């Protein structure tokens, strides 16, 4: 501990250089933190999926509708326990400043069966009862409620460019009766769910009794692929052929449309770290070279080689940890503010494992950048070091 003040004093030698080095490391780890949040946001959907759930959609694409009556036929397939449908409503509301319209991920559903299939959505029993007894009732995720300042009891309007009422209006009326939370950290809480019977009764057009896709719960997750095949076969050669697949595979396939996110992030991180490594390593080496005479004096008055090595390593690790931990902390604070694009990336948080990984990287950065100058300091011959100063 008594040597910490010596390390701290050394860092104050060239304040501007120390600040710039700290800043570069801070930025690198802030970037690291944000990229980790982004990666989790993009791939977290896979880990949030339920192995016992399948998604059944139109074979051609998600935007093609399926008959609602398929639910009963799917339910008869061996291994299927529950079936619930969803439809993309594309509800829009005004931003808080009333400046523009934003899309709220909104879906008409059968409340009771839907909440059974998606148990990670946690809704208090009293609010569930209110939803069941209110035809225009809607429940919203906590993220959406916080974002749009919606409270239970609010009467709101959503407009949908897809769905019109029979009267030809794009505007739909709802009463907020519940706010659901997530059983897991990565549960998507940006959604808006309302009753399908209200939707079906009110909507006009040719798509009556058509729904977007089905969520299917199976008895045995091990049989998910086999059951998917059975569902596909059930509707083969029908006017609406389907594609059934485990939820995880569907989400994975969706993500892959954006390319191999994990590889891109790894590549960016590697480049950032390599650059920081060069900058910090060069700065540390230069700082130690400038102080050869001082290190020679320390050795002359009895500091052993090992202690001098530890002092140099201590300094590089202090710089790396100080910059790194501040950057990680700032990224964590950034994650608390919620997703800047909740409709596109609803899951937005920093995993504890990523924080620990960042801490490990910071320490590693300190050790690697300090290693060469520390070894130079260790090997420094006193008489030679003192001669350099003369």
């Amino acid at each position, binding site marked *: 501990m008594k040597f910490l003040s010596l390390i701290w004093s050394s860092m104050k030698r060239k304040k501007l250089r120390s600040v710039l080095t700290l800043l570069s490391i801070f930025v690198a780890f802030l970037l690291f933190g944000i990229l980790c949040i982004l990666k989790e946001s993009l791939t977290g959907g896979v880990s949030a999926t339920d192995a016992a759930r399948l998604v059944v959609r139109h074979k051609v694409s998600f935007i093609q509708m399926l008959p609602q009556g398929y639910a009963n036929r799917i339910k008869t397939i061996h291994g299927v326990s529950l079936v619930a449908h969803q439809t993309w409503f594309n509800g829009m509301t005004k931003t808080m400043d009333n400046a523009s319209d934003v899309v709220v991920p909104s879906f008409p559903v059968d409340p009771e069966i839907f909440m059974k299939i998606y148990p990670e959505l946690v809704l208090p029993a009293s609010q569930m009862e209110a939803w069941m007894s209110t035809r225009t009732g809607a429940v919203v995720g906590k993220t959406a409620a916080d974002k749009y300042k919606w409270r239970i009891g609010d009467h709101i309007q959503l407009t949908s460019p897809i769905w019109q009422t029979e009267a030809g209006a794009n505007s739909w009326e709802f009463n907020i009766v519940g706010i659901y939370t997530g059983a897991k950290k990565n549960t998507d809480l940006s959604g808006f769910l309302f009753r399908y019977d209200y939707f079906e009764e009110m909507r006009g057009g040719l798509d009556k009794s058509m729904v977007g896709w089905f969520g299917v719960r199976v008895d045995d997750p091990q049989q998910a692929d086999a059951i998917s095949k059975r569902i596909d076969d059930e509707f083969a050669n029908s006017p609406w052929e389907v594609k059934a697949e485990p939820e995880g595979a569907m989400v994975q396939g969706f993500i892959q449309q954006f390319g191999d996110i994990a590889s891109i992030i790894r590549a960016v991180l590697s480049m950032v770290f390599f650059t920081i490594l060069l900058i910090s390593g060069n700065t540390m080496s230069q700082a130690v070279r400038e102080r050869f005479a001082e290190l020679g004096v320390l050795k*002359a*008055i009895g500091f*052993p080689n090992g202690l001098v090595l530890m002092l140099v390593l201590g300094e590089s690790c202090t710089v790396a940890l100080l910059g790194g931990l501040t950057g990680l902390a700032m990224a964590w604070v950034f994650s608390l503010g919620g997703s800047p694009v909740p409709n596109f990336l609803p899951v937005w948080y920093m995993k504890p494992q990523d924080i620990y990984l960042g801490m490990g990287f910071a320490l590693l950065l300190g050790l690697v950048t300090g290693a060469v100058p520390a070894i130079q300091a260790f090997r420094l011959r006193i008489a030679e070091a003192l001669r350099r100063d003369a």
Partner: protein
Amino acid sequence: MSAESSDLVRIEHVTKTFHRGSEEIHVLSGLDLTVARGEFLALMGPSGSGKSTLLNLIGGLDRATSGSVIIENDRLDELDDRQLAAWRARHVGFVFQFYNLMPVLTAQKNVELPLLLTHLNRRERREHAEIALNAVGLSHRLNHFPRTLSGGEQQRVGIARAIVTDPTLLLCDEPTGDLDRKSGDEVLSLLQSLQENGKTIIMVTHDPHASARASRTVHLDKGQLSTTGPE
């Protein structure tokens, strides 16, 4: 008491050779020297005569090519690097021509540096440093950084750092070489008073005025003692 037992430093047949490429440079050639306990010895000689090299060997900063350097009962050539560092911390105080203070530390913290290697706690280190700075007449400059001190004051901080552990031997490499006459005289008077209080001092200098303050002067030329005796 025999003459041998009163000798603190014994240099026996010491040679030191440096290599520059394939060329061998013999800096010290079979040198013998003794320094008595409590003596203030001045080492003089032209540049390149080997006086700083000899001081480095006596202080355990470098190793002789052959021969032995014995300080009290310690043969320095038999100590490994770690033992030598511990020996320096216990037995030697160094005073450098350019003071070699840490610019980011106050006078007091600079003086405390050697005490970081001891078991003294923070308060004790502070007390020892204050005593040492008081001894060199700088008790009013404890919290000043080197850049705010004059050359003479910086050198006195350097001397305080050298004596704070109460070493057996004080080695001074051109301690007045970077100072004006007045400051130089103050530093020499300080060294003399330390000798009077029992310290053994070996000082490398070019300056006859400085060597005149020593109790004995030896001249080195081309790696060999040329004359020995009072100036």
